């Protein structure tokens, strides 16, 4: 029964985090395909996906050979830092302290940049296009790989985490094929907020297991940690918004 306490948050965290990362990668791949051609855009994407698959195949089994206590401690700490980074940024964006991420602006900026480069002699082997697609899919994909491996190995739940990430990839690829434009309507900051809450809760839980704390309710305390971080983050948004207004008023 307690397995569900981990499996559902694992699947949800992997799905939502991967969705955000794939949407960002899709924006750049669409820009590359539109400006420089689809063949090099898809070639760069394929090369990056292949490299990422090799990384998962190499790292996944290697991590299972390390004693679980060390994995929980190391992965928990990294997951906590990763989650707090996302949550901090999402709080500051929700409070209006930093600007929201705009996929349409990112698409326009990437398109203009790609147009400024010289055309390749052979458009099938356009190094700029292949390199740009490869780089963005690698950068965003590394985060997905980390989340899947971290959430999966620390709790022995690699399957639900992989299913979550796979489902997100499928959703984004299908939407990309149907729409052929950036997915600007995805509520990215709300997703990042939710992912930040989930990953911070997972990170705290595994870190606690690694350092030997005694969680009340054992595995079920993970759900309590999710609720706790949600409350803290919502309070942080309210307080940050008020602080920001006061700071702006002081400047005026």
């Amino acid at each position, binding site marked *: 029964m307690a397995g569900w306490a981990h499996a559902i948050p694992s699947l949800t965290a992997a799905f939502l985090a991967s969705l955000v990362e794939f949407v960002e990668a899709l924006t750049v791949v669409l820009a590359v395909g539109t400006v420089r051609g689809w063949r090099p855009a898809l070639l760069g994407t394929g090369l990056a996906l292949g490299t990422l698959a090799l990384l998962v195949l190499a790292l996944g089994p290697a991590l299972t050979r390390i004693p679980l206590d060390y994995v929980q401690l190391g992965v928990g*700490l*990294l997951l*906590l*830092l*990763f989650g*707090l*980074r996302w*949550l*901090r*940024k999402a*709080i*500051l964006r929700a*409070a209006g*302290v930093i600007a929201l991420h705009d996929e349409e602006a990112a698409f326009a900026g990437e398109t203009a940049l790609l147009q400024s480069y010289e055309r390749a002699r052979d458009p099938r082997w356009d190094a700029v296009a292949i390199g740009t697609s490869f780089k963005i899919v690698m*950068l965003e994909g*590394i*985060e997905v790989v*980390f989340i899947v491996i971290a959430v999966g190995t620390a709790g022995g739940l690699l399957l639900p985490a992989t299913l979550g990430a796979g489902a997100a990839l499928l959703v984004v690829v299908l939407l990309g094929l149907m729409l052929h434009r950036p997915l600007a309507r995805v509520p990215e900051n709300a997703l990042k907020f939710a992912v930040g809450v989930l990953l*911070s809760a997972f990170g*705290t839980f595994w*870190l*606690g297991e*690694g*350092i*030997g*704390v*005694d*969680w*009340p309710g054992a595995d079920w*305390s993970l759900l309590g*940690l999710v609720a*706790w*971080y949600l409350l*803290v*983050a919502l*309070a*942080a948004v309210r*307080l*940050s*918004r008020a*602080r*920001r207004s*006061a*700071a*702006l008023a*002081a*400047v005026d």
Partner: protein
Amino acid sequence: MRTLATILRELVGLFVDDGSLAAGAVVWAAICGWGLPLLGVGPRAEAGLLVLGLAALLLENTLRASSRRPRG
């Protein structure tokens, strides 16, 4: 060499956005894991202190960032 530095920077960037929040979380985890047991704090209380400390760090950090005077 420059490529290696870029890769390293990207890797660190995955986990660290604001250095003080990351450093605070690592230090607090170390205190909860190794310092508090030396003071005789039990594992159940450690769990509570770990969670409270991390939440306090996050709150303090976001409030400090919000209070910064806007540029321009």
